[in-house]
């Protein structure tokens, strides 16, 4: 079978297009690279969507943590402690089992004038259930990063804002928030890389791969189990992730330069890649 044919069959296998069955013979390099690459679609989907929603949630968490009101601060502190203090792997299991326990027919919410039925079945699927966990998890880690940056905003910047009569929402939008982003960005870059790496855990942690639609590592372990040869499939995953990491670094580096465009050239710090490993 030619490589083009393999690509047509398995290029979009992870989202349900192409051949129905996974390859049962051959297991050549082309087959492995194509199928594992198709699995990367899931990793990209999980990483990008979780980072997007997590970003907004993290801003809320950071502001709540810095708030003087204990009713806001305490829940935010507990949220961060629980999601940063426990393994993501356990969180996946825990949420999955909770979602499974939800009634299959949905939950009825009486609104007085009408009753709406909230469907819950979709939460046990990986695309939604794992996404909830990843969003909350990245929100906790990112919230902590943003909180640290918020506390590191130079006092002079705030005093200058006061002197100009910029207060309240205006001060936050024009002074505090941009500075917070600028200070937090290098650490946030690492968090983003780390988030993409964490997406490989999804299909190893309770969430079933429906019709064998899984992520890159899912297919890699499939090949490793079939061929008893870890020296091909895993290096392919590793290569894909190295490329992904480089892409993330260059994209975030562009944003970092944009955030720093007003800072004098010689005092700019460079974006450094210091990965964390696991959560």
């Amino acid at each position, binding site marked *: 079978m030619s490589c083009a044919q393999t690509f047509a069959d398995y290029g979009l296998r992870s989202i349900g297009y192409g051949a129905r069955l996974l390859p049962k013979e051959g*297991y050549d390099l082309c087959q492995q690279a194509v199928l594992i690459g198709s699995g990367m679609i899931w990793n990209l989907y999980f990483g990008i969507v979780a980072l997007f929603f997590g970003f907004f949630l993290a801003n809320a968490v950071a502001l709540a943590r810095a708030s003087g009101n204990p009713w806001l601060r305490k829940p935010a502190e507990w949220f961060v*402690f*629980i999601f*940063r*203090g*426990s*393994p*993501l*792997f*356990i*969180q996946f*299991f*825990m949420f999955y*089992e*909770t979602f*499974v*326990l939800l009634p299959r027919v949905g939950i009825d919410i009486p609104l007085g004038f009408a009753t709406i039925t909230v469907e819950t079945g979709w939460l046990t699927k990986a695309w939604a259930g794992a996404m909830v966990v990843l969003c909350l998890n990245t929100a906790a880690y990112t919230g902590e990063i943003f909180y640290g940056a918020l506390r590191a905003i130079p006092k002079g910047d705030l005093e200058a804002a006061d002197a100009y009569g910029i207060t309240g929402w205006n001060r936050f939008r024009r002074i505090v928030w941009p500075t917070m982003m600028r200070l937090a960005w290098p650490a946030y870059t690492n968090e983003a*890389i780390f988030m993409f*790496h*964490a997406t*490989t*855990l999804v299909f*190893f942690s309770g969430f079933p791969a429906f019709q064998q639609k899984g992520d890159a*590592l899912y297919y*890699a*372990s499939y090949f*490793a189990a*079939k*061929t*008893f*040869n*870890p*020296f091909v499939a*895993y290096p392919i*995953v*590793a290569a894909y*992730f*190295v490329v992904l*990491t*480089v892409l993330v670094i260059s994209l975030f580096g562009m944003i970092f330069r944009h955030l720093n465009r007003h800072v004098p050239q010689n005092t700019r710090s460079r974006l450094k*890649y210091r*990965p*964390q*490993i*696991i*959560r």
Partner: protein
Amino acid sequence: MFSSCADPKALEGLSWFLCYLTTGKHLLFLGSFGTVLLLLAVTAPVALALGFGGALAARSALAPLRWLGRVYTAMVRGVPDIVFFLFVPIALDQGLEYLRHRVKCPDWTEPIRKGSDFVVCPAAKLPLSSAPEWEHQVYAFVLAVIAFAIVFGAFAANVIHGAMNAVPKAQLETADAYGMTPRQTFRRILVPQMWVYALPGLTNLWMILIKATPLLFVLGIEDIVYWARELGGSKTTGASAYPHGDWRVYYFFVLLCFYLGMTRLSEMVFARLYRRLSHGQATLAGEQMRKADK
């Protein structure tokens, strides 16, 4: 375990739970917490030693050794660690079996990789297929520990390498001026002062190591995740003397609390350790302590 548990159907409330939680399988579950702690206890020093070696190699004057150190520390970056956890045990297992195969069965002519199979002669199997079950368990655990140590050693090497560079140059130059040899400077000045710079990074690494332990489950070890899934699943009256519904979520809640407790405890221990190490150091924390003592 208790004699009062002989007839589970007659039990009520608290005594039912006491009996339920002390069945043979639950004792294995409790024992698997020991497995996790053992993994931490073995991996942490080995990874630290590997990291120290890696950092030394990366500083070495000998070029090949330096490259080896650099490659080792760079190896784990950019790739999800779970890939290494899946890769290293299989690769090690096949490597060891291959070596034993070459030694024990020199007249075996068939190829080892037959299509999609990995075949070595029966005498080279690790552990032997006739070995008792516990040997297989221990072997799998040892492979897991090696995988953890290699991955975390690379990160520790990174941290320690940075810490060695962070020791103020003036300290080393003073040692030189007093006529110490490079070896003496290293042992008496660099290493004792390095730890305070390495500690924040190593603390972080320890927290990450704690949170990586559930991955033992992925490696097929009967750890706490395995037992939580096994015991929590719903049990019917026929299959078990203690029938219950789907309790996995409660089991995982216990695991969550276990990990949160471990994290909290480690935070407290490291805070104390940091205070002790800062004593008399040329850092901000050390200076504050000196002023407070006066």
